[in-house]
């Protein structure tokens, strides 16, 4: 049996602002991971990453990050990716204030 594939999201930094963004099913970049496309198939994930990387004028440094399905959409599984959805812990800066 093939090894199980950990679901992924495509993420990157926005070109102008430099903050974290995620790729949606509609091919837009969102600042809310819950609106991202959760990729459960490895081949499809690789393809989506290639497509994302081609959009050099919008983002930098696209990669696949582990994620899991949650009640309101994809959620990060690793603490690093979790921090990227919020911002730094020493100040109320970044997404934790910009999104609310």
């Amino acid at each position: 049996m093939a090894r199980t594939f950990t679901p992924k999201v495509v993420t990157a930094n926005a070109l102008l602002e430099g903050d974290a963004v995620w790729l949606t099913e509609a091919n837009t970049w969102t600042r809310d991971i819950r609106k991202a496309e959760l990729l459960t198939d490895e081949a499809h994930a690789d393809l989506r990453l290639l497509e994302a990387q081609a959009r050099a004028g919008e983002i930098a440094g696209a990669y696949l990050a582990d994620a899991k399905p949650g009640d309101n959409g994809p959620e990060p599984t690793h603490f690093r990716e979790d921090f990227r959805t919020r911002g730094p812990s020493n100040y109320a800066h970044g997404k934790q204030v910009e999104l609310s």
Partner: protein
Amino acid sequence: MYTYNDFDEAFVRSRVAQFRGQVERRIDGSLTEDEFKPLRLMNGLYLQLHAYMLRVAVPYGTLNPSQMRQLAFIADKWDKGYGHFTTRQNIQYNWPKLPDVPDMLDALADVGMHAIQTSGNTIRNVTADHFAGAAADEIEDPRPVAELLRQWSTDHPEFQFLPRKFKIAVTGAAHDRAVTKAHDIGLRMVRNDAGEPGFEVIVGGGLGRTPMVGKVLRAFLPKADLLPYCEAIVSVYNLLGRRDNKYKARIKITVHENGLEKIQELVEERFAAVRAGFSGVDQELLAEIEAAFAPPAFAVKPTAGYEAARLANPAFRSWTDTNLAQHKADGYAIVSISIKKHGATPGDATSDQMRVMADLAEQYCHGELRISHEQNVILPHVHKADLAKVYAALREADLATANIGLASDIIACPGMDYCALATARSIPIAQEIATRFDELKIEHEIGALKIKISGCINACGHHHVGHIGILGLDRAGVENYQITLGGDGTETTTIGERAGPGFSAEEIVPAIERLVTGYLDLRSDPQETFLQTYRRLGMEPFKAILYPAEDKANAA
């Protein structure tokens, strides 16, 4: 202080103009990120976790008031109203937007500053003793030499693509405050038997994943030979250094793999060849630079008011006990302004605080400020008669924390709150440790203690040379903190030893508290510092404190 001449000014402006064009081409899509990345790094622009980061050099840690005010202006206009002072005497802005960066660089150029060679495999910002020109134990002010090295290394055509980054630190004093032994080249001013000043040249020190203490390449180098000798070292490294493996590319590995003697031989050989090309222009230039660094006209006035203020105000007295250092001029003191208020982010200053420090430097400090590698700001020349006024102004600005050299004067790298390479956070750990020691009210009793925290193996927070070092790691998707003990970043540089298994984010602060209160019981007398006790007793008693028997099973 050195001020830019027309050449410097034109060079920096042309670099900004080039970079402006590069940013435009990146934004309009004609440059890919792979193409743009080396260009932005050459200009100090990183891409981190939540935003871009601009790293600005503060050469040899020296700033004048108008430069400090401009740093404040930049923080307000293009960032979030603050800046982060780092262990390499740089300031980092954590929130710039790409289209704004060329304007930020232009604003820096307005006050003779830039971000060139703050990144990439080049010779980085040359750092110096932050008490340079003021310290009582100094042979000579090392900054003219640092400025000479800066001019020589900036855009040096041979050294733009070294195997890896290259860091130089210089001190003119017996007591090493510039961590020279943890640099690619460390320069310590010494005198020869004839009493002439020159340098002990140390090579191959460094922290990161393979920490090494630098080795003496030349016990005495005449001052006049400095540039050709440094050129010889970098040139030998440029050819011999490994480019096949990023982790083996620093000169410390080159020295380690080839042996000090071989390097010595090659450097001396190259030096003999290179030296002929130096016609003495460098020495003429040095003489000009030295003139620009002439000491200020120190005032002679009574200090009686200072003693009276000390007696009258215990808070002021406590601050003078910890935050002052001995100045070479009579009646003067060196003031360290703590950027480590308990619970705040080490090294972060708001724009308002920067302006207050600039004003104080202008009014009371002959127009000079320094950034220390310990992430504090220094007023190098304050007359004792003015200290009470300086203290009062610092207090107003929330800058009067009396903790220099104590447990809460912690170095912490940005860690996973900002840095894309991090494996764990470091800032919150520093905040919690400082807050805890403040609650316990024991840091003055503990005395001299250096705690240093890095958020990954790269060791930007100098954890290897902390009396207590903390290294944040990712253990199976959870933040985990490893403790090292006995590190030292001074003239007796020592790499700390790992104490044992790491601690979770919840356990690390209690572990540090246990360690430090345990030391209070172990020390022979209140004068024996943590480091001295560790050196006397070794790791075992500290290990017993960190890992009490009943916890052993859980600590792994």
